[in-house]
Structure formats: structure tokens, C-alpha cells
């Protein structure tokens, strides 16, 4: 008997007592009724030491500090207005070593959860592949306010499970030394969020 068939047979035997069907109670909140989602989001982001900027005018100022910038191929042109540094588009795909030499990456995102300060990337528009937002030490992420939802259940309905998903809540951190959160291990050690759109 193959391992597969044997394991499945073992599990079927183990359920010989025929446990009754389970009704899953879903009494938890699925929609946020907080009035100020953006305020909550900013509070959460800053609590985990992300730096929040507002409005498209923040971008040229931020990017002026960046000598070598990685971007996905479909980055909106207006995000780069006036950028004078070295621009590295991810086409053909940049090697991991090449990405490691760059100072920052600029992307958009798919959905943002205000309640937890979580930015979700799904490799969709203006995001690129996963390595792009991982290897450079500084991630500048543009968030449109219409991408912000209150709670996690609201975010999941907007996502395609088949896409590679990366959920980011603050910069890289560890709690492994005496359980204190310390920023900065292997992922980007600086996370900067630029809020665009109404209410930003």
C-alpha cells in the first residue's frame, strides 16, 4: 500500500466513532464600523515603526535620498516625477545579488488592513514579484486610501488565493532575544508608507 493510501486508511479508522457534523459559529466581526479607518491605520503603522507620509508630494522628497531605486515594470510614471537617481526596472528580472546592491524599492500594494496595520501585496499592479520587495533594505510603499479596509475578513474577500501573497506589518523585526521586539533582521529594515487619495 502506498504511504498516501495507508495514511488515509489510518485516518479513516481513527474516525470510527463517526464524530457529528460541526456548525462553525461565525459571530465575529466581518465589517469594521470605526469611523476613522485611516487614523487607525496610521496609528498601527507607526506603532510598528513604519514611517507614514501623506500625499504624492512626499514622494520626490523621499526619493531624493535614494541613489539606486528598484521598481516594478508597471510603476506609475507620476510616482517617479523628477527622480534623478539610478532607476532599475525589474525587466529583465534583477538577480538577487543585483537587488541587494540597490538602496530602496518603490511599489504599490493590493489591500491594507487598518485594524492591524497590514499591507498586503499580491504581485498585482505596481507591485512586481516577491523578491523585489524583499531584498532591498528600504521599502517605500504607496497606499491609496480606497485600498484600505477595516478588518482582516474584509481584506480576504479582495484577494485571489492563487496569487503569491505577502502580508507586511511594519519593518522586519524579531522578538527572539528576551522577547523584546527589535526592528531589523533580514527583510527591509525601513518601511515607508505614502498615503494617497481622499482622506489621506
Amino acid at each position, binding site marked *: 500500500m502506498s*504511504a498516501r493510501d495507508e495514511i488515509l486508511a*489510518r485516518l479513516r479508522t481513527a474516525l*470510527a466513532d463517526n464524530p457529528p457534523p460541526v456548525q462553525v459559529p461565525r459571530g465575529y466581526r466581518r465589517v469594521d464600523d470605526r469611523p476613522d479607518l485611516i487614523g487607525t491605520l496610521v496609528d498601527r503603522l507607526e506603532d*510598528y515603526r513604519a514611517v507614514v507620509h501623506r500625499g504624492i508630494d512626499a514622494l520626490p522628497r523621499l526619493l531624493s535620498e535614494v541613489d539606486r531605486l528598484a521598481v516594478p515594470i508597471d510603476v506609475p510614471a507620476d510616482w517617479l516625477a523628477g527622480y534623478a537617481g539610478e532607476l532599475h526596472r525589474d525587466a529583465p528580472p534583477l538577480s538577487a545579488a543585483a537587488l541587494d546592491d540597490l538602496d530602496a524599492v518603490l511599489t504599490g500594494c493590493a489591500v491594507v*488592513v487598518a485594524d*492591524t496595520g497590514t499591507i498586503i501585496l499580491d504581485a498585482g499592479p505596481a507591485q512586481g514579484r516577491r523578491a523585489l520587495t524583499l531584498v532591498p533594505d528600504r521599502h517605500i510603499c504607496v497606499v491609496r486610501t480606497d485600498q484600505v479596509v477595516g478588518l482582516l475578513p474584509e481584506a480576504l474577500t479582495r484577494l485571489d488565493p492563487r*496569487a503569491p501573497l505577502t*502580508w507586511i*506589518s511594519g519593518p522586519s523585526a524579531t522578538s527572539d532575544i528576551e522577547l523584546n521586539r527589535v526592528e531589523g*533582521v533580514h527583510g527591509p529594515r525601513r518601511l515607508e508608507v505614502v498615503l494617497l487619495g481622499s482622506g489621506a
Partner: protein
Amino acid sequence: MNPPVAPATGGGRIRTPLPFPTAAKPAVADTQLRANLHRATRTIRAKRARVVDEVPDWEALRDAGSAIKADVQRRLPELLEQFEASATAAGATVHWARDAAEACRIVVALTRAAGADEVVKVKSMATQEIELNEALEAAGIAAYETDLAELIVQLGDDTPSHILVPAIHYNRAQIREIFQRRMADAPADLSDEPAALAEAARAHLRRRFLSARVAVSGANFAVADTGTLVVVESEGNGRMCLTLPETLISVVGVEKLLPTFTDLEVFLQLLPRSSTGERMNPYTSMWTGVTPGDGPQDVHIVLVDNGRSAVLADPVGRPALSCIRCSACLNVCPVYERAGGHAYGSVYPGPIGAILSPQLTGVADNASLPYASTLCGACYDVCPVKINIPEILVHLRQQAPHPPVERATMRVLSWVMRSPRRWAAALRLARAGAGPLGAYRERRTGARTLRRLPWPASAWTRSRDLPLPASQTFREWWGKQ
């Protein structure tokens, strides 16, 4: 029609080489270790309580999480088949392993087939359980742990002592000493500031991440309807391993399934708040098979039984398979705080280890572990999936009454409780982490608890109301004092 196949117990690092009391003795005598554990568990209890208190629907989330897991257990064979079909359709290759040894053989063969003689690893309880690093080493393959705490433990030639923070038993000065001794590229003037230690780990692993060809991970969740795997982490070492290498091998216990992608909305709220005490952990990665041009193109999933079928076969002990390895129960356990993780022998320490390890191996092989508890109930209060750990402990004690083990274990527990002040302090700390759930428990257990004395004696009423063997144990112990 095939004859029925009996559920089977497992192997690997899930057996206590020594009875719990013997193993706990050095830890209980080690004042530095106790200070480290006390400090770390106190920190995490406070963090957890703060972020759990701010969630108004926490109890509803726990109820949902508990029910979803019960449903998974009831439908495990069909959900596994569904997961296999979805993951395969998305481009992953699914393998099945009856036990630890078979899982190790599969990973070794896949690594060799990829032409690699080293792998980078994401922290994973399943690979610790099956002793994968040892199997890889025996096959001439170097395994590099990349999680900071796992790296500390690996460099220190030690074994993990906590589910979430395997190096919880070390303080910063001890970690600096290990780095200076074993990390060739550690800076000569390395300080013991956590930020400096993290920086040293970053520099040490950077080149390895950028050049690794094979990564080995576990998974926190495996979604049946989509074939998606989920890894929850903090440092970004997980993202590195899950994204950069060409080949990715994930070792996943069969109990890790969730029926639908939507169910993640429950578990990704429960897990981070219960484990690191954060609203959300810094990074969560989800992948479904292969994505062309993005991440590993050669994706393998090894589904492991290794005793889980035996756990499933016991209707009382079955909920132990609901565990999402958050470690909240360790952090509130007065016995864990005194004895440390190594005393439990198995990779699964603390209250969950005391019920899971004996079920994975058969109670006879881990007979002392069900006694490694005071039955105070703090673990049940904090468990995000509401596993009734005290009830299962009592059930396992009934299965294998070993009077000498029991007596010896009680002696160790009596150390914890010898001084009323010490016992009260341990309980108070445990309670502090339980937050508002204490009151909830009072309501919930009111139905089956006839009389409750005020705390801390309430811990005793609880155990006395439990089935007879346990209460005898405690009365005997009480009588001797």
C-alpha cells in the same frame, strides 16, 4: 475492500529520554535559567493580554477557530485529498510520509535531486519533530537554520526549549557569547544589545540566502480548497527562504489543514495575538503551487502522519490536533516557567507538549508527561482554539497510571508549590496573562464545577472536581504536606 489499517504512533524527537521530574531537576536548580524564563514569559504574557483585550470579538473568534478545527478533524481524509488535488493542480508535488523516518528520506532525496548539498531552513516544529537536520547531516547535506532563535540554538549545539522562541532560555549575554564562539564572521566588538545581535545574524546569513538553491520550511496552515500554504514569521528569513531558492520543500503535519481560504480570517487574527502578542506579525507568506517567474519553480509538499492518526483515534485527546503552536499555554504555565522546555524531552514542551507528545508516541512511552502539570487551567483560558488541556491531561493519566512516575512528578511539582507565596505568585502571573478570559472561564465552567473556592485555592477546587485519579493524586499530595 482493504482491511482497516490501524492508526500508528510516531517517531522522532517526541519522546522524553528521562522522566519529567528527573529532567526538570537541573532546570529547577538553575537560577539563571529560571530568571531568563521568568523575565521572558512575563514580558510575553503582558504583551498578549494587551492585544487580546483590545479585540471585542475575541471569544467569538476562539469559538470559530475551535469549531473549524473540530470540523477539519472530522473530515481529515477528504480534506487531505482535496488539498492534494488543489496543490497539484497549481503545480506543486505532494508527497506522503507515514512517519518521521520516511519524511526525512523524502526531503533528502528531493534535495539530492536538486543537486544541492546545503539547504536553508525556515523555523518549523515539524522538521524539528522529525529530526530532519540530523538526517540531512547524515546524508552529507548541511542544514542552515535562519530564524534568529533557531540559529542561536543550532550554533549553541542545543535543542529548542520553546515553540515560538526556541532560545528563550538564553539571555542576551549568553547569546553574544555563543555568537562570538561559533559565528566566524561575528564582529570582534559585538555587544549584547539585541539590535547588534540581530545585525550580526543578518550579515551572517545574507550571502547564504542570496545563493541558496533549496529551502525547507514547515507551514502554519494548509488550505484544502485552494492548495495554499501559509507561513507566519517576523524576521524576513522566511520570505528569503520561500522566495529566492529554486526548490522549496515544505514539511506539513496532516493536521495543519483548514477547509477554506476564508477560514484564514479567523486564524490570522488568533495566532499573532496569542503567540508574539502582536496585532499582526511582521510577515506572512502565502503561496499556491508554482507562480511562473515569481519564487521557487520546483515546489514540494510532504504531508506527515507521524503519530497524528493515533491522536485522531482518541475522541477525548483528538482536540490536541487543533493546536496552532502559538505557545500561549507555555507562557502562562507555572510548571513550564520553573522547569523550562528541555525537561519535557519532546520538541513540544509545556502544556500542549504534556498532552500531544504522549498521544503521538502512545502514553506508555511518555508516561510522566501527563503529570507535568498542576491542572491550574491557565492554559485552557489562553488557548486560542480552546483545547481543554486539563481534561486531556486527566484522561491520559487515567490511561497509564504509573504510581512511581506519579509520585516522583508530584515531588517536583511540590517544589513549585512548596512556598505558598511562590505558588501564589506563579498563579498570579499565569492569571495576568489570561486577561478577561478568567471571568469567562468562571461562567463557562460554572456548570460543571459544583463549588469554587476563591483564588488561588480555586485551582484546587478545579482539580478536585475533575475525575477521580487526578483528585486522588492531589489529595495524596496535599495530605503529605
